[in-house]
């Protein structure tokens, strides 16, 4: 056991696992968070620095080397199970010319690492890896220059290898001997001497994930596993429905239950703290029974959700426009819908917090330690610098799930039992009902073909909100909303950006001479939502790719060939061609009740390109669909860890199959009724495809393009198209349930 500077006693295992409990504070938060690039004398802005160096240019914010030559790399991004830890180590090891084992990586911690906002949007490679790569290269060159100075030889005569600078003659000098206090405390320069692809040792290799051995043998791997000395267990009691008021609660019986330390009530926020975890659960159940709520039946009729959403439209934004679309003759016209869906982490959200004289420390699987720090400080009325948020892994989140809310719960409860750490874990039904859902959407497409079988008019309308309601303030935290001094979330605004959110990928990459893409903006939604993997791209690409197949049928064309007709981007064409070829795409008829389908998109129109072909089998008697195989091709620019990309893409495809075949949040006019895996089923093993292939189109030397969310849209499209091909009917509504498929087939 050891004492760290937060005044906590932390178990040795926690420290060994790199939980961040051991603090090496070396630079102030402001330096990371609010660095403004210096303005040059002539008023021009300083040149853009690569990746997140732009925001955090000091090299020693990213890389530190101690006198023994031990290398620590810092990232503001968090491991979410996507394997970023391994890829960042690879990048640093490559440019620093050391073995990956030599690198210690510290991830998101407001006291230690740069502020890189959220680990989201498939941008960690683009921003953090780019920053670390350049910083590593620059550090290497600084070390070479320092060695050259000491040896009195030209830097060009020296090379870095295995953590040492090697001169042509004489003894190599270890990095540790070269560093002195301010050597790396310099700002990055715009230009780095990056290694050329032909010299790579580590980049491009499928290095095994560094986090897997501990995860498969029971090491401390998640915030759920954090055990601090004297730690208490808390459970929250959530209202039965979203807009409920706590009318009355008699806490006396609960307070006398075994092990109960405290019942916390603040407005509609209700929680119980106990010595042992199961005591907390028992007390939570009793407290839930003792609480009386006033509920509001203000949810729309689920069967008429699309109409309810469209009625919430307040504003229309133009996402893209070209030519002058007009519709006459044979017009393809369709409406597509997507329901609310859940992130559905297998491990319900969890956080540990302690409030003491040092301030408040929160361990959380949040995707953004800095924004969460701001939000929690705002909720509690504390100065930001008194709150520290440390990332520890949770179960996969796939976007903004309950993580930040659980962190806020823990923070609020911890302030009620100062001095003792508190661990809060949500119950399954709380995760299902209270995580912010993936947003429901409606899209409408109209399109016509010209005489040559090319699309000449295209209109795409989508009804959506912004999807992301991430902490940018306390108002997005459930606890802050439920407290007596309630904070409301900031209003959301329509804003058209390149990456988009609700409108993400609404503008197809296909060449369309006359098009109009409109976003019918809903500022508010009946149910609370936030960013879920791919945001609007999932429903938009599902709609676009379904339409492409219907248009191909109208044109009498093969769906793959039809897509290629409308693609000019060479990288797009290549993934389409590779996926089709590896799949063995053909127009040969398949056996009865089998079908094949294709889907393509470039995520956000600026990240990875992905094409996927699927074969499905449909059981007409039950409407049950099973994907038999999926074959995809992905171009994510230069690939650092091929197996990592393959793993993420396989996962994206399988998760999308689950979303698209099975998943919808259900609710009555008051409550969410999908509250566990029995009421919200997801993919189980018997329905898993026989094979899922991922073929990488590697682009060494090209910028990194985020890959983690690339599969969602195309896979949904391919699946819907394969079902269409198998049964001869189009299903426009997600999920493609057994019932919908059976009804579409008829007898």
């Amino acid at each position, binding site marked *: 056991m050891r004492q760290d500077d937060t005044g906590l006693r932390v178990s040795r295992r926690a420290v060994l696992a790199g939980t961040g409990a051991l603090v090496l504070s070396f630079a102030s938060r402001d330096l990371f968070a609010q660095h403004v690039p210096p303005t040059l004398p002539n008023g021009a802005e300083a040149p853009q620095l690569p990746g997140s160096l732009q925001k955090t240019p000091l090299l020693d914010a990213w890389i530190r080397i101690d006198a023994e030559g031990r290398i620590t790399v810092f990232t503001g991004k968090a491991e979410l*199970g996507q394997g970023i830890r391994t890829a960042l180590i690879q990048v640093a090891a490559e440019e620093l010319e050391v073995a990956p084992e030599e690198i210690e990586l510290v991830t998101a911690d407001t006291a230690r690492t740069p502020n890189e906002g959220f680990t989201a949007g498939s941008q960690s490679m683009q921003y953090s890896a780019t920053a670390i790569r350049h910083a590593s290269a620059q550090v290497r060159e600084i070390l070479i220059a320092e060695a050259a100075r000491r040896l009195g030889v030209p830097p060009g005569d020296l090379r870095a290898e295995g953590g040492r600078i090697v001169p042509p003659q004489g003894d190599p000098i270890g990095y540790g001997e070269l560093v002195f206090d301010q050597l790396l405390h310099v700002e990055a320069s715009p230009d780095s001497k990056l290694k050329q692809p032909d010299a790579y040792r580590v980049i491009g290799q499928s290095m095994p994930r560094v986090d897997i051995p501990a*995860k498969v*043998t029971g090491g401390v791997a998640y915030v759920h596993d954090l055990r601090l000395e004297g730690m208490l267990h808390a459970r929250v009691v959530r209202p039965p429905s979203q807009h409920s008021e706590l009318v009355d609660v008699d806490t006396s019986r609960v307070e006398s239950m075994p092990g109960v330390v405290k019942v916390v009530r603040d407005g509609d926020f209700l929680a119980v703290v106990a010595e042992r975890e199961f005591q907390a659960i028992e007390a939570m159940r009793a407290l839930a029974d003792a609480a009386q709520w006033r509920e509001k039946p203000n949810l729309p009729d689920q069967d008429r959700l699309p109409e309810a959403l469209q009625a919430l439209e307040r504003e229309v934004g133009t996402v893209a426009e070209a030519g002058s679309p007009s519709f006459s003759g044979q017009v393809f016209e369709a409406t597509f819908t997507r329901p609310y869906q859940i992130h559905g982490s*297998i491990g319900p959200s969890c956080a540990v917090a302690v409030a003491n004289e040092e301030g408040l420390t929160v361990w959380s699987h949040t995707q953004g330690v800095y924004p969460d720090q701001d939000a929690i400080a705002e909720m509690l009325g504390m100065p930001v610098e008194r709150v520290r948020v440390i990332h520890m892994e949770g179960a996969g989140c796939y976007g903004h799930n309950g993580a930040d809310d659980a962190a806020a719960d823990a923070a609020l409860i911890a302030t009620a039992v100062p001095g003792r750490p508190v661990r809060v874990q949500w119950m399954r039904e709380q995760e299902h009902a209270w995580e912010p859902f993936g947003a429901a959407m409606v899209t409408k497409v109209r399109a016509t073909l010209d005489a040559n079988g090319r699309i000449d008019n295209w209109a795409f309308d989508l009804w959506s909100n912004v999807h992301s309601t991430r902490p940018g303030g306390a108002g997005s935290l459930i606890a802050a909303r439920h407290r007596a001094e309630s904070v409301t979330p900031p209003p959301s605004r329509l804003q058209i950006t390149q990456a988009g959110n609700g409108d993400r990928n609404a503008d197809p990459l296909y060449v369309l001479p006359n098009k109009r893409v409109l976003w019918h903006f809903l500022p508010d939604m009946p149910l609370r939502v936030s960013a879920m993997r791919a945001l609007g791209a999932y429903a938009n690409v599902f709609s676009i790719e379904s339409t492409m197949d219907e248009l191909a049928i109208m044109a009498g064309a093969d769906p793959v060939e039809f897509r290629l007709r409308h693609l000019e981007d060479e990288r797009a064409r290549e993934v389409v061609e590779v996926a089709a070829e590896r799949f063995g795409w053909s127009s040969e008829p398949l056996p009865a009740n089998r079908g094949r389908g294709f889907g393509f998109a470039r995520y956000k129109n600026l990240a990875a390109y992905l094409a996927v072909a699927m074969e499905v089998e449909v059981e007409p008697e039950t409407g049950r669909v099973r994907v038999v195989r999926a074959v995809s091709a992905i171009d994510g620019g230069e690939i650092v860890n091929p197996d990592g990309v393959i793993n993420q893409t396989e996962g994206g495809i399988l998760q999308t199959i689950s979303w698209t075949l099975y998943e919808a949040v259900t609710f009555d006019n008051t409550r969410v009724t999908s509250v566990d895996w029995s009421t919200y089923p997801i993919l189980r093993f018997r329905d898993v495809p026989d094979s*899922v292939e991922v073929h990488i189109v590697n682009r060494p030397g090209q910028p990194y393009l985020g890959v983690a969310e690339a599969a969602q849209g195309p896979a949904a499209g391919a699946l819907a198209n394969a079902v269409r091909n198998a049964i001869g009917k189009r299903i426009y509504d997600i999920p493609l349930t057994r019932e919908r498929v059976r009804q579409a087939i008829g007898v």
Partner: protein
Amino acid sequence: MAITLRINGEAHEVDADPATPLLYVLRDDLQLNGAKYGCGLGQCGACTVMVDGEAVFSCVTPIMLLEDSEIVTLEGLGTIDNPGPVQAAFIEKQAAQCGYCIPGMIVRAQALLQKNPAPSDDEIRSALSPNLCRCGTHTRILAAVKRASELMQSNGAAAGRGEPA
């Protein structure tokens, strides 16, 4: 009330309410991280452990039922330095994304392979069907179980690590 539980070959005296589900005793009293809370309802399998060679949900199993049982958790199958064959197969196949469900998968696979050393693909799917994965690691998990079966067979009796004594 003290209850003696045999876990991974060792006897542990646990001072907990006999109604406490095994999961909380493993995690909180014995500091074993392998079994995870996922649903508390026996619907997802994240908490899977072996009891007398059978895969069970530790989240719905009160310890009062386990006094004469041999309990094996993920930790009983191997260590980070000396992983058991199923663990080794999961590492080899890189069969994890977030990894939260994986301990339950490994223990359930171990229970399957102890009874059926060479399961067919369908048998593996059926055996794993009580367990959920959200990251979409399914095909790797299936491959890892297949690989574990090979490893255990080629290692013969030496691969019996983790089997109840």
